[in-house]
Structure formats: structure tokens, C-alpha cells
């Protein structure tokens, strides 16, 4: 998401490139464009107004002829204001007597149940918590069943509610159960409700009063329009919200709702949902998202994702082996391919890198995983001996490998060549100062403007 806002703002700002200083007219014209961009991005009208006022104030209050070019200057201010608007991150309040109760609230279809499952897995994996989840949605058909299925699939405990019971009774019974089973965290899923539905809002206020959650999270669809302001402020008034989770951030919505909701509730956005898979929930970083809005890429998120998904033990083992002078084998190559795939493939990585803005979407995805899968298939068709000693692969072996993997001999050749190059690179790495040389080589290839 956010790409469109990025595009709009960069086109505005590129108009200003090459000018020595900003005139009043420049500022007004730019801010008009920024305003339209934000409106198109579904940032709520009052929030846009505040934002523009802030930026104008910041520009007016400062000397124009600083050492920055006008373009950089505007980027800097808009960036800083975006961060201020979205606020700094926050954390879940888990340091409470167990069980820590987390109540989820939101409109219909915001993604509460999916987020509960993601959060349950996140808490277990990242914090080693014993998690139980309960659904108090007795209204939507099969809502309780949905959470139960997710619990079975992803191995977290579920309190089985009965749709015939009152939501409050289910929540209270789940509290009892979580206590007696010494759970660290109880996640309470609720039915989607409209902020104008007094009865339903009353119900969740009651649940809140009964279970006294340590965190009350508001789940927001990042595709939400102007109405984000109304629903967010109504929920914020009814419940003492402690944080926000932004869902469906992997869509192409411009994400204005993030700014709006943050602005009207004053509560931190804790997480964002970035895909359909269970582990596609990431911590929200206002500074990173602001950077992404401005076309600076999202390198920090990428680093975090790599850290989380790559298997550290395996990576360390490989590193140790290499530094000891061991050679990089096809088996290692195969593992690397696997890890790459785990991170969502090449497209997912490229998506987050700066300086690679608009690749045609279809082209990216096609390029993506198929190639990785093919390479893996070729390696899988080799014997263990061949994998350890690729030099033994002769013509007839190549033919067998190609047949076994459903590829052509040329593909096998290409893989072996690629592997050969990688091996050479790895050897260079092991030499003294190898890493430094390699990095120097890399940075020369970076797009201009990203070298500091």
C-alpha cells in the first residue's frame, strides 16, 4: 500500500528539484498538491487540514536558505510531519498478572478473527506465551467455528463458546478457564459492530467492564475511507482503546485511514496485517511507513523480516563452515533458496527496497517464485554425491537431472554456472577484507541518491 501516495508526493516534489529557494507561491502550490494527494489517499478531510497547517507552520517558521535544496527541505518537513501524525510506535501491555486479556473491537469485516489468530501465533513465537483465544461472535454464522479452525490449524488453545450463550457469558467463562489453565494471554474476539449501533456498542462496553482487559485493540481496515474518523472516534469514546491494528495493508489502498485513525484516537498503531498467511503480521513503525510514503523504501522492515524468517541456526552453521574454509555446496545453495522462498520470494523483497519503484506488477510476480522453485527442483534431482561434488556432473548425468526435474539441459547448465559464480563470490568473502570489498562493489551499483 502507500505506493500511490508515494507517487503523488514524489511528482509534486520533483517539480521543485533544481530550484535554489522556495517562493511563497511554490509553497502554496506544493501544499495544494499535497492536499489533493492526501485526499485521494483517503486521509480524512479534517486530518488533511491539520496536516497542511502543520507543514505550512513548519515552513513559515524556518529560514528557507538552509543547506538543503528546496526539494529535500519539503521532503524533510512532510516526512517529519507524517511521523508526528502517525505517532511513535507502542507495545502491548503484557506485564500484568496473568492472564493478560486482550479485547479486539472493530467494524464488520475489518479482519478481527484473522488478526486474533495472527496475534496468538506472534505472542507464542516471539514472546513464548501460552495463549488462549475465545470468540464472542454469536451473530455471524460460523464465526466461532472460524476461530476454532484457526486454532486447530495453528496450534493455539481455543475456548469453545456456544452460539446460544450471551457474548458476555462466553467471555467470562473463558476468563475462568484461562485462569485455571494458567494461560499467559487471553485473546477475546468479538462480533463486528457498527459504531452507530447503540445496543451492540453497549454490549462490548459491558464485556470490557467484565473482563477488564489490559489491552483493548481497535482493528481497522486500511482501505477505509473518510468514515474512518467517525468509527474510530466512536469506538474510542465508548472504549478505552490502547492501540490500533491496521489490516489488509498488503492491498494497494493508499492507506490514508492509518493517518486518520491515529490522528483522531491518539492511540498508537501497534501492528499491521500484511498478508493472508498466519505470520504476516508485522510491528507498525510510523517512521518506516512515513519513509515509504515518501519513496524512501522500507529497508528496516525488510531487515526485520529477514531476521525473523531465516533460520538463524542454519545461517550461523553456514557462516561457520564458510569461515573455516569449507566450500559452499549445492546443498547450502538449496537451503538458501528455501529461505528466500520463506520470505515471500523475490517480489516481496524487491517490494521493500528503495529505488525500485514501479515494476509492472504482473512481471514481478511471474519472475518471482517460479524461478526459485525450478532451481530447487533441479538440485533435488541430483544425487547426494552430485550435490557435494558438482564437478562430477557430466553430460549423461545432466540429461538425467534435466529429465528428473522436468527442465532442459540448458537450465541445468545455467544453474551450475550460477552456482560456480556464487562459489567464487563466497571464496572472495572469506579472504581478508573480502566483505568490505564486496560491499564497495555493491554500493557502486546502488541508485543515485541512496548513497549517503
Amino acid at each position, binding site marked *: 500500500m502507500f505506493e500511490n501516495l508515494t507517487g503523488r508526493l514524489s511528482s509534486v516534489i520533483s517539480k521543485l528539484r533544481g530550484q535554489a529557494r522556495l517562493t511563497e507561491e511554490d509553497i502554496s502550490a506544493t501544499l495544494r498538491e499535497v492536499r489533493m494527494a492526501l485526499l485521494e489517499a483517503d486521509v480524512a478531510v479534517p486530518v488533511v487540514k491539520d496536516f497542511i497547517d502543520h507543514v505550512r507552520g513548519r515552513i513559515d517558521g524556518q529560514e528557507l536558505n538552509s543547506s538543503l535544496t528546496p526539494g529535500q527541505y519539503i521532503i524533510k518537513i512532510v516526512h517529519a510531519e507524517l511521523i508526528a501524525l502517525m505517532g511513535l510506535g507502542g507495545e502491548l501491555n503484557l506485564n500484568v498478572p496473568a492472564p493478560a486479556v486482550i479485547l479486539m473491537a472493530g467494524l464488520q*469485516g475489518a479482519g478481527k478473527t484473522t488478526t486474533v489468530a495472527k496475534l496468538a501465533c506472534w505472542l507464542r513465537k516471539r514472546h513464548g506465551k501460552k495463549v488462549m483465544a475465545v470468540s464472542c461472535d454469536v451473530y455471524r454464522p460460523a464465526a466461532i467455528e472460524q476461530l476454532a479452525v484457526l486454532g486447530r490449524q495453528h496450534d493455539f488453545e481455543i475456548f469453545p463458546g456456544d452460539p446460544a450463550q450471551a457474548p458476555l457469558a462466553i467471555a467470562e467463562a473463558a476468563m475462568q478457564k484461562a485462569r485455571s489453565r494458567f494461560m499467559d494471554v487471553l485473546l477475546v474476539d468479538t462480533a463486528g459492530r457498527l459504531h452507530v449501533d447503540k445496543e451492540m456498542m453497549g454490549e462490548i462496553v459491558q464485556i470490557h467492564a467484565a473482563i477488564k482487559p489490559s489491552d483493548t485493540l481497535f482493528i481497522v481496515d486500511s482501505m477505509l475511507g473518510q468514515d474512518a474518523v467517525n468509527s474510530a472516534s466512536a469506538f474510542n469514546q465508548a472504549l478505552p482503546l490502547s492501540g490500533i491494528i491496521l489490516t489488509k495493508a498488503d492491498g494497494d489502498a493508499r492507506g490514508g485511514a492509518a493517518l486518520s485513525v491515529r490522528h483522531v484516537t491518539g492511540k498508537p498503531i501497534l501492528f499491521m496485517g500484511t498478508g493472508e498467511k498466519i505470520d504476516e503480521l508485522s510491528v507498525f513503525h510510523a517512521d518506516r511507513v512515513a519513509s515509504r510514503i515518501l519513496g524512501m523504501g522500507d529497508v528496516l522492515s525488510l531487515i526485520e523480516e529477514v531476521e525473523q524468517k531465516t533460520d538463524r541456526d542454519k545461517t550461523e552453521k553456514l557462516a561457520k563452515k564458510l569461515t573455516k574454509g569449507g566450500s559452499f555446496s549445492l546443498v547450502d545453495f538449496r537451503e538458501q533458496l528455501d529461505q528466500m522462498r520463506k520470505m515471500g520470494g523475490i517480489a516481496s523483497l524487491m517490494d521493500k527496497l528503495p529505488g525500485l519503484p514501479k515494476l509492472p506488477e504482473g512481471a514481478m510476480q*511471474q519472475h518471482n517464485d517460479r524461478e526459485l522453485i525450478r532451481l530447487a527442483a533441479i538440485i533435488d534431482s541430483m544425487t547426494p554425491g552430485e550435490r557435494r561434488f558438482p564437478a562430477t556432473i557430466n553430460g549423461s548425468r545432466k540429461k538425467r537431472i534435466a529429465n528428473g526435474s522436468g527442465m532442459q539441459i540448458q537450465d541445468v547448465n545455467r544453474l551450475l554456472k550460477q552456482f560456480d559464480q556464487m562459489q567464487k563470490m563466497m571464496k572472495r568473502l572469506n579472504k581478508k577484507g573480502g566483505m568490505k570489498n564486496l560491499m564497495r562493489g555493491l554500493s557502486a551499483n546502488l541508485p543515485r541518491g541512496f548513497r549517503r
Partner: protein
Amino acid sequence: MAPDLVAVLNPALVRYSITTSHQVSIPHMFGFKKTAAVTAPAPGILDRLRNGLQKTRAVLCTDIEDLFKGKPAIDESVLDEIENRLLLADLGVDATSRIMAALRAEAKRNKLGTAAEVIAVLRQQMLEILLPVQQNIELDASRARPHVILVVGVNGVGKTTTIGKLAAYYRQLGSDVLLAAGDTFRAAAIEQIQVWGRRTGIPVIAQHSGADSAAVIYDALQSARARQAEILIADTAGRLHNKDNLMGELAKIRRTISRFDPELPVEVMLVLDATTGQNALAQAEQFHKLAGVTGITLTKLDGTAKGGVIFALAHKLAIPLRFIGIGEQAEDLRPFAAEPFIEALLDTGA
């Protein structure tokens, strides 16, 4: 707005003012919150719509009234404020500029002096945008059976709920309906549609979770043919429109239906959430490109204060608007009709 006043200001608009209430005081004709209205108990769709859209009117009309307090003539700041209001209602930059252009043109010709005239022009503009997309689904008995309604959309817009309501709607009309549980991805989606099937007494064709969606729908087509069902409503998993692989899967489902019988009348119904902002346009464009959307259903109009995105939609893509969802009950899914919709949206006599 009192009907007789509208008549005085713009006789052409009389036919749109099917108000159910009568205002006593004239000076505050745009302020429903301050008007002593004698409301006759009005049954039916208009009333429900009006309740559903109350928040929209609160934004559009109250504020327009506030704007004009103590202002005899309309000036630039007033027009700017109206523009803001339209943007706030999610009309989008394009549709807003179109309406504002007309408003400004009228103002320039000095025809607009009062709020009533502004509302009249607004109404006219909105109607011009929405009337062309007011087309309900026509069931043609002479065509091959079943009439397929393939329900598509992004995650969480209310596809399965809409299917439940649609099933009840057609059931009530006496049609022979069959449901296909094509969402094989989301946990318990099959159970959800099966519950709707039990509630409405309509058979549901389903396979196991994780089955190929196209296969389920093909199965359902065969079953519908065997049973001579008139309508087959097929669910699909929610998918974000920017996921190429998932959209490719949807295109495959669409092809499967045509391959079963090219003569089948197929409605590819895109479900859009009215609380969605301008992204609804991107959704409609992408789904249209991959699956050939033939109709749109707009859900959750009872929750949003605005629902103005349908103006942007009707303006940019001329895809027919079939139904609107204005509440949680099965009968709260209504065929879309532009006039009562705008009437309810602009009516200040509630």
C-alpha cells in the same frame, strides 16, 4: 425539504420528492435537527433507507444549513465548504469536481441565491451520475439455466452475508435457488454459507476446505442443471485485487463457468464495502479486468456516514449497481434505485 418549496424552486424536481413528512416551519427548511417535523409513519423501503442514511444526511445537510446561516448570497467560501463536504462523503476528487463545476457554473449565472437552490442542483447532479447505473438483474426465462451469480470481492466486504441475503431475496420471489460454497480458503467459510442454506432452506453444494474453488463451482453447475435450478449463487474466497495469482484463480473460475455452457447467463457480482474509500475504484477496475464484472452490490450502507464512493464509481466505471445492503436483516438487501437513494440522502425532513 418541504415538497411544495421544491416545486416552487424547481418544478422538475417535484417527482423526486417523495417525502413522507411535512414540515411546519419554513425558515429552517434545511435543518432537520431544528425543524418541527410532523412525521407520518412511513413504511417500506424509503424509511429504512432514510434510517440507514441518516448519518449521511447529517453530514451533507446539517452543515449546508449551518453554512448558509446569515449568508444571503453564495460566495466562494461557501462553495469551498460544500466541496469539502462532498469530499468528506467519500465522493472522491473526480465526482466532486464534476458536481462542483456545475454548482459554480450555476452560481456564476447568479441563479443560486439560497441553500434550496444549491440542494436542487446537487440533487440534479447526483441523479445524473447515478441514474445510468440503476439497472437491476433481469432473469430471462428463455435463456439457459441456471442464471449464475458469481460473487466476488476483497476480504471482509460481506460476500457470504450478501449471498445469504440474495438467496433469501430470490427465494421470496419464488425462484429455485442453489448455493455453491466456493470459498474453500477461509476457515469456516463453508460452514458459514451452510448455515445460510439451512436458514433459507436452500441446498448448498460444498466440498472440503482447501478444495479447488473452480471444481466446487463446476460441481454446483452440474447439480443445478440436474435439478433444473433457476439461479446458482456461487461464493468465492475474498482476495485483494492486487494479488495476481489469486486474481488469476478467479479468472479461471469465470472461464470454468463459460466452459460448462457458453450460453449461461452469468452475473459477476462485485461486492464493495461502502466504508471503503477511493480504493473501491481500484478494486472495481481490477476485478473487472480479470473477471468481467457485470454488477456491483454495495454493502454496509447502514454503518457508513456517507457511501459517496458510489458516485465516484458510477462516474468512472459504468458498471450497473444491483443491490445495496442497508442493514443486518435478510430483507435489508435492496435492489438499488437512484431516486429514493438520493431522496433519502438529501431529504432534510426526517
